[in-house]
């Protein structure tokens, strides 16, 4: 029997740490944390670091001081390296299943509708084997009838079954697992809603799935009712839906006319970047890096194919339109190739963090930022007056801003010809 609706969520385990370990075998088996922009807070932990009780957001210097006896390794975030690992993971998954949608830097949803149980379990297993073998990144797989159930299964694969693979295609299995998953861990249920649900006596995903639809509709926004339907096995959320909760902001589109000039590509990417920055400010977040991508039309088999993506890290977290779109300008210059007809381009904001967590004390922070902004506005004015070609000025200024202050950052083994790993 085939399942009309089936989704799989594949996510990289401790993604940033795993991406570091691909290139640095000495990090294997020891506690490792990755510190965020400007070496501030812990943004990723290895299992060994979790076992020491280190929490996300702990100050990196404190972790280093407190746990040096355990041989802890602190890596400065290297988003170029993580971007490459992410793209490899996404492409490996895409080689196994046709319909995939990345949901964040380290997770990808697969629409696997129309498969039998046997095909689905085989797919999950080959994904679990192939992604680490090809990319070096170990992954967890969750399978369920809806996006929300696949996300829940993925959580269970890590925290409950602990074997990295959880298959919830039968209603009985899903119900059983939902009894063990706290309501706050359900995808799309934020802290405010889970608080209110707990006050109503709803503590697990199963409690919530069994709550009367009438109560849910009366007491909560429609998105909460959709989440409930999804837990009941009824698909109610689309991956493309802008309401779908996501940790990644992606703005891109196909061009009406093929884009062949750097000018056009740069202004398109910069426009996408401004829109993404506006979204970012709306949800009161900041980012550490931006990924820009552009490609030709893959369905035009007779035309030469080209596709390129580049990740631009920021020195410190930002949600400033000018900095983000200046990064897009610079990225466009890297991506652009004369003679290529670009059919689609877009930007992806990565390393999202809440705004408040980021205002760290930094000697260079405020002055630098203000000067930067003032400069940016001058540059913008010049560009507005003399046209976008004056962009070289913006790029030079931008470059200084993108030199992150990092104490122990790994070389860009995978993306820079200067940093190829040397083998003896």
């Amino acid at each position, binding site marked *: 029997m085939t399942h009309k609706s089936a989704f799989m969520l594949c996510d990289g385990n401790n993604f940033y740490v795993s991406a570091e370990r691909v290139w640095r075998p000495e990090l294997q088996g020891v506690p490792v944390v990755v510190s965020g922009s400007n070496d501030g807070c812990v943004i990723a932990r290895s299992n060994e670091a979790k076992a020491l009780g280190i929490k996300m957001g702990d100050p990196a210097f404190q972790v280093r001081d407190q746990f040096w006896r355990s041989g802890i390794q602190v890596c400065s975030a290297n988003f170029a390296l993580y971007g490459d690992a992410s793209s490899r993971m996404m*492409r490996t998954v895409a080689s196994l299943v046709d319909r995939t949608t990345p949901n964040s830097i380290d997770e990808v949803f697969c629409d696997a509708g129309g498969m039998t149980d046997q095909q689905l379990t085989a797919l999950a297993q080959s994904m679990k084997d192939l992604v680490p073998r090809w990319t*070096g990144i170990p992954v967890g797989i969750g399978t369920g009838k809806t996006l929300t159930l696949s996300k829940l299964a993925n959580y269970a694969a890590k925290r409950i079954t602990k074997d990295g693979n959880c298959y919830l295609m039968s209603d009985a299995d899903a119900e059983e697992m939902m009894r063990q998953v706290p309501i706050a861990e359900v995808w799309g249920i934020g802290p405010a809603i889970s608080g209110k649900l707990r006050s109503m006596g709803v503590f697990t995903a199963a409690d919530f799935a069994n709550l009367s639809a009438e109560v849910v509709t009366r007491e909560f926004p429609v998105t909460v009712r959709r989440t409930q339907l999804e837990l009941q096995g009824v698909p109610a959320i689309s991956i493309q839906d802008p309401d779908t909760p996501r940790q990644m902001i992606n703005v891109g589109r196909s061009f009406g006319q093929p884009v062949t000039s750097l000018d056009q590509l740069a202004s398109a990417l910069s426009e996408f970047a401004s829109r993404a920055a506006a979204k970012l400010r709306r949800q009161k977040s900041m980012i550490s890096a931006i990924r820009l991508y552009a490609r030709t039309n893959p369905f035009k088999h007779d035309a030469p194919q080209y596709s*390129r993506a580049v990740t631009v890290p920021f020195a410190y977290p930002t949600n400033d339109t000018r900095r983000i779109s200046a990064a897009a300008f610079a990225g466009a210059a890297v991506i652009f190739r004369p*003679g290529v007809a670009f059919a689609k381009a877009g930007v992806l904001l990565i390393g999202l963090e809440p705004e408040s967590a980021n205002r760290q004390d930094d000697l260079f922070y405020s002055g630098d930022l203000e000067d930067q902004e003032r400069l940016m506005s001058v540059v913008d004015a010049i560009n507005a007056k003399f046209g976008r070609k004056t962009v070289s000025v913006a790029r030079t200024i931008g470059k200084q801003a993108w030199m992150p202050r990092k104490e122990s950052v790994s070389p860009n*083994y995978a993306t820079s010809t200067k940093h*190829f*790993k040397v*083998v003896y």
Partner: protein
Amino acid sequence: MSTLTLLAAATIDSPTHNSPLLVSHVSCGFPSPAEEFIEEMTSLDALAIDNPPATFLLKAGGDSMSGAGIYSGDILVVDRSKKPVNKSIVVAIYEGEFVCKRLLFDRDGVRLLAENPNFQPIHIANPEELVIWGVCTYNLHGLLQL
């Protein structure tokens, strides 16, 4: 008349297929006699990279593999999706370091061989602990270097 546009090779970051290195645009007039030849040109990526998401470029250091034509500074194309077999040239993790050696297994056990008499073979006491990082599929050796 035709014009030729030289494109850069598709990066291995590219999610789509390899692009031809040389592209021919026929604008008008007579077909160029060079046309057929041009169509046979392909990209270095298409030649040397079977599986882009699993392929990495690493750099050779030292001359332990000179007998296999791998010299210091050469760029190795390493495919993690290829299964290492007996006598494959592999990148392995040995004592925490990346090494490029020839993998050999026979009744004496598993060894990593250098292709240079100045280097001793490495006997692997616990083969299950040996990490083969990837299989070397091509070596890019510059001929302009002295």
